[in-house]
């Protein structure tokens, strides 16, 4: 029985919110007051954090490597955008509708995709994205085709807060949505369900042997991840008031993968670190020379694989271990909190 009590104590301890986990939210609040002219960029970063977080559930925690996550982002973006231009412009219900829609598409396509593995799984994810892109391109009377979906008008949020030119309302709106999504993800991942996902990542055969319905769990988390990606897409459509075909592209799937891995996959906060680094670097570097941006991005990816498989958070771990060796436990506490 002592083993059981100990397990419960550990689970409670990990479930408890640590102080450092408040840091992202303090930064978000600080940004609103200190950097008002950067709010549109910060809103994009929030959307990217949410998108990368959704991929983390699937890739980082469950170990399903996919290059087709943009499909669900795109479905969410187009659903919210099309609703908005066809007289259903109330933002919050639009957001929910887009989330549900992306979840349904995720469930159906996930059923096919998850039956395969490896190279085939990667290919099917890409094929789904390209298929949806071809559809969106063809039905351009609804989606705007290659020109993108224009003319999205957002009525005031909750009937009171007008979406302003400086992006203040959009920023707060996106931040609140991210906060709620983070609460859901955190709860989900710390629950026994979430721990079983990690088990599936580490050893699917053993999980199946102890009675975990592996395929069903994978399909569930695939659907949840797709729905959350759709939420991110919808948020992007509503705050930018524009949806482009790029939101259904292989490039975007690649980008979100890079963002997640840059921060650290399977750590819940990898998305929070990768997205700002990537987006700010892109904002400053890519404008002057897109070719060099791609070159450095490629080198960084190769570097991550060869030298630091855990991304930035992995490097923090390494630093923490070395501090511990050199100065004893106290000095390492800061690192431990991450």
């Amino acid at each position, binding site marked *: 029985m002592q083993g059981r009590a100990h397990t419960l104590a550990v689970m409670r301890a990990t479930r408890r919110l640590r102080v450092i986990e408040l840091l992202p939210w303090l930064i978000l609040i600080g940004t609103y007051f200190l950097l008002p002219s950067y709010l549109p960029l910060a809103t994009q970063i929030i959307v990217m954090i949410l998108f990368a977080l959704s991929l983390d559930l699937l890739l980082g925690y469950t*170990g399903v490597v996919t290059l087709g996550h943009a499909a669900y982002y795109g479905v969410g973006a187009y659903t919210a955008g099309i609703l908005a231009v066809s007289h259903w412009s109330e933002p919050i219900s639009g957001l929910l509708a887009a989330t549900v829609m992306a979840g349904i598409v995720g469930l159906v396509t996930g059923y096919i995709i998850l039956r395969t593995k490896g190279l*085939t799984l*990667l290919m099917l994810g890409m094929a789904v994205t390209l298929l949806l892109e*071809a559809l969106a391109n063809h039905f351009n009377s609804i989606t705007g085709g290659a020109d993108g979906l224009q003319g999205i008008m957002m009525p005031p949020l909750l009937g009171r807060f007008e979406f302003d030119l400086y992006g203040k309302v959009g920023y707060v709106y996106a931040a609140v949505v991210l906060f709620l999504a983070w609460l859901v993800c955190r709860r989900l991942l710390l629950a026994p369900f979430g721990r079983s996902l990690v088990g599936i990542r580490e050893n699917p055969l053993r999980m199946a042997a102890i009675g975990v319905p592996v395929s069903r769990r994978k399909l569930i988390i695939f659907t949840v991840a797709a729905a959350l990606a759709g939420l991110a897409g919808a948020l992007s459509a509503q705050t930018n008031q524009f949806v482009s075909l790029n939101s259904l592209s292989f490039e975007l799937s690649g980008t979100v*993968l890079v963002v997640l891995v840059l921060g650290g996959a399977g750590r819940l906060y990898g998305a929070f670190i990768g997205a700002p680094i990537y987006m700010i670097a892109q904002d400053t570097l890519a404008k002057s020379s897109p070719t060099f941006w791609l070159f450095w991005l490629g080198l960084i*990816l190769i570097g991550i694989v060869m030298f630091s498989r855990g991304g930035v958070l992995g490097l923090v771990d390494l630093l923490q271990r070395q501090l511990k060796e050199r100065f004893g436990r106290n000095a390492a506490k800061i690192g431990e909190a991450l």
Partner: protein
Amino acid sequence: MDIVNLGVGILFDGVAYGMVLYVIAVGLSVTMGLLGIANLAHGVFAMAGGYVALSLMNNAGAPFWVALVASFVAVALFSIVLERLLYRHLYDAGELEQTLLSIGLIFVATAVAHFVFGPLPQRVDIPHAISGQLTFFGETFPTYRAFLIVVGFVLFVGLWLGLDRTMIGARIRAAVDNRSMAQCLGIDTNLLFMLVFAFGSGLAALGGSLGADIIAIAPGYAMEQLVYFLIVVAVGGLGTIRGPFVAALLLGLGDTACKMLVPQFGAFFVYAAVLVVLLLKPAGLFGKA
């Protein structure tokens, strides 16, 4: 009569396109089956081959045949360097690492190609011997495409015989089936892997330069064509020679038919068909489940 012409045109162009896809992707299928490496950067080798061959022809005035051989050799050697430097460390790593490394390589290669050769597709001059038209049964066919079809078939038969009838083919099959057992029998799997990787990359280069008139050589090549190469491998099923051949033929025909008959839908029906095939047979048409 028009429908017959259209049908024959689709058949001919589709088979030629399929052969190009086959020559490029067969190496990916073999390395995937043998090494278990998801080398998404395979298209980089094809693109590099295309650039080598076309610059030799356009700038140095080299004959077509010389350029083909040179692209095969140069890319095969280059791939050995990459194998020793990068891929070797990933044989036992997870899928994620392999995916990331190959995407990183695609990005770097795209940027380098853009920087060195510019954003536009490379000019292709088909040599006199295989330009012009052939006439069969009152129908005319471009000689270049007929040449591609012949090359594809010859390569297919050659690979099949090589893998089925030669000693090195037997060693490769043994290593695919059971690597550690093959090692116990004294097969140097390390060397074998390196050779197969180099040969597969060389074939990709050959396919890239042979098919340069069908799939244009431009910086975005590796990324844009990736999904087609993967379809050939996945639909064909891993570890066989005829699997990718049949899959490449089907894909070439299907894609050509879609582009000629319903261009407004892009490749929608191709992707839909791929989803259906893999729903019914998740291991591919000829793969072992």
